């Protein structure tokens, strides 16, 4: 005796969402056999977002390296993760052959090892006359003229993450990426950052910062065509407290709503955090603040509550604060509480 069959009455997008919480491989063999309707849902789910690495990637790519394979049109998101491998050129060529089959691809992630990013240019695997229109691209392939040409051929990209080394000339046409709303980079120089930010409608940027580049890098963030609302900064040196960035950030990005600073190589104590309090008054619309650093193990959550309260008093628009102990603070019934 079956139940009332309410599950099949759910819209397909909800069924796919439910299926996305199942685990591959343990749940899918049984799920694929439920019936033809759920078989279609399961197949769409399996191929909708494909995340594969090393040997599995080779098997998958070889299995779909066939013109006209029906699975080509199911794949809308593809992640190829080779960060733990050195990729042979034969595999690069396989990626280059398969990508032009994926007409429905919207999100592509192609990650390579630091060694390959530093020593091999692999952006040539991206087809310049691709049939797909990406919304999202993440790659650690090295910056190159081919990479800029590929970006120029993908005008619908909204979210871009370039994590490769920038050791080659990189010149992006001013008309490229007209809708870009978020950009993440790891190794971009201030000059490359300025090229990507300038005159594009960015709302969200994530960068890695070293002290000697800070002024130029932060200055380039003012060049976007719309105000940047969300900024994440990973600080990788310990030359100056990250809180010293607050005045320039407030001057450059006064409309910032979310600021996330991660400075794990720096050590903070309560005095430095309290000293930063007046600097936060310069952010009139800041709602979400993260400040992660190697904290002083001697202080406790009660001490962090004091910091959260002080910061929120200086910057009353704040809604949540994450401090070095990793807890999220928010205002509840008039006081700052931890989640």
């Amino acid at each position, binding site marked *: 005796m*079956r*139940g*009332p*069959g*309410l*599950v*099949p009455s*759910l*819209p397909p997008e*909800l069924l796919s*969402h*439910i*299926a*996305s*919480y*199942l*685990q591959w491989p*343990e*749940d899918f063999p*049984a*799920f*694929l*056999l*439920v*019936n*033809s*309707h*759920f*078989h*279609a849902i399961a*197949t769409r789910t399996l*191929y909708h*977002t494909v995340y594969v690495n090393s040997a599995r990637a080779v098997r998958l790519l070889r299995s779909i390296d066939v013109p006209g*394979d*029906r*699975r080509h049109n*199911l794949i809308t*998101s593809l992640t190829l993760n080779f960060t733990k491998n050195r990729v042979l050129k034969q595999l690069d060529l396989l990626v280059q052959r398969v990508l032009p089959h994926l007409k429905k691809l919207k*999100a592509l992630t192609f990650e390579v090892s630091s060694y390959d990013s530093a020593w091999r240019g692999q952006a040539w695997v991206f087809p310049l006359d691709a049939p797909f229109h990406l919304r999202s691209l993440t790659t650690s392939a090295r910056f190159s003229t081919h990479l800029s040409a590929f970006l120029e051929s993908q005008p619908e990209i909204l979210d871009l993450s370039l994590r490769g080394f920038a050791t080659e000339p990189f010149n992006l046409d001013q008309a490229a990426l007209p809708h870009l709303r978020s950009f993440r980079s790891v190794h971009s120089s201030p000059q490359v950052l300025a090229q990507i930010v300038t005159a594009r409608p960015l*709302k*969200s940027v994530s960068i890695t910062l070293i002290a000697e580049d800070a002024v130029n890098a932060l200055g380039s963030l003012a060049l976007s065509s719309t105000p940047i*609302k*969300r900024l994440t900064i990973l600080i990788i040196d310990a030359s100056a407290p990250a809180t010293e960035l607050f005045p320039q950030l407030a001057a450059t990005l006064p409309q910032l709503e979310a600021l996330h600073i991660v400075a794990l190589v720096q050590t903070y104590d309560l005095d430095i955090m309290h000293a930063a309090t007046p600097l936060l008054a310069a952010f009139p619309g800041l709602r*979400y603040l993260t400040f992660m650093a190697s904290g002083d193990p001697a202080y406790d959550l009660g001490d962090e509550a004091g910091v959260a309260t002080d910061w929120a008093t200086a910057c009353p628009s704040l*809604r*949540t604060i994450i401090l070095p102990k990793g807890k*999220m603070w*928010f*205002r*509840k019934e008039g006081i700052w509480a931890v*989640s």
Partner: protein
Amino acid sequence: MPTIVSVDDSTVPGEGSSRLLLLVSSDNKHIVVEEDIMSRSRFISKQVEGFEATSQRHAILLPFSSFVLNKVIEYCSHYRGYYLLEDDPDAAPPGRSPVREWDQEFLDVDRNMLLRIIKAAHYLEIKSLVGSCARAIADMIRGKTTEEMREILGVENDFTPEEEHSPSSKCTG
């Protein structure tokens, strides 16, 4: 499009941040709730924007029962003031919601109720709640045999014997 009816301003005050909304369930129960609580619902937020454009406030008629609506309001009240990434329209990531302990207890209900909540959350565009419900439904069928999954999902096997022995042929063409 939802059905809307005009309401008297005295029924639904429109003052500052504590403005109230009048929600009407399919069993014709009138529920007054603070607008701030329901701001997690993109559907409700869009309705409120519409009110502001026309300077008229209306009751919002919803196609599910007061029992389900109250459950959704309980969820929104619990997370009032919380930042949940899935509900941020500027940052909404694709993919799965994280495990939230409170949600697991909140959704410890029978299957039919769970399905009604996910439908309501989908209608109201509360992505965090849709995600938690989807996870809860998936948890019900995880680790089960095909026959047990059919029982839980309430569906019959419609494969031919040939297809059942080689179903993968249907997706690889």
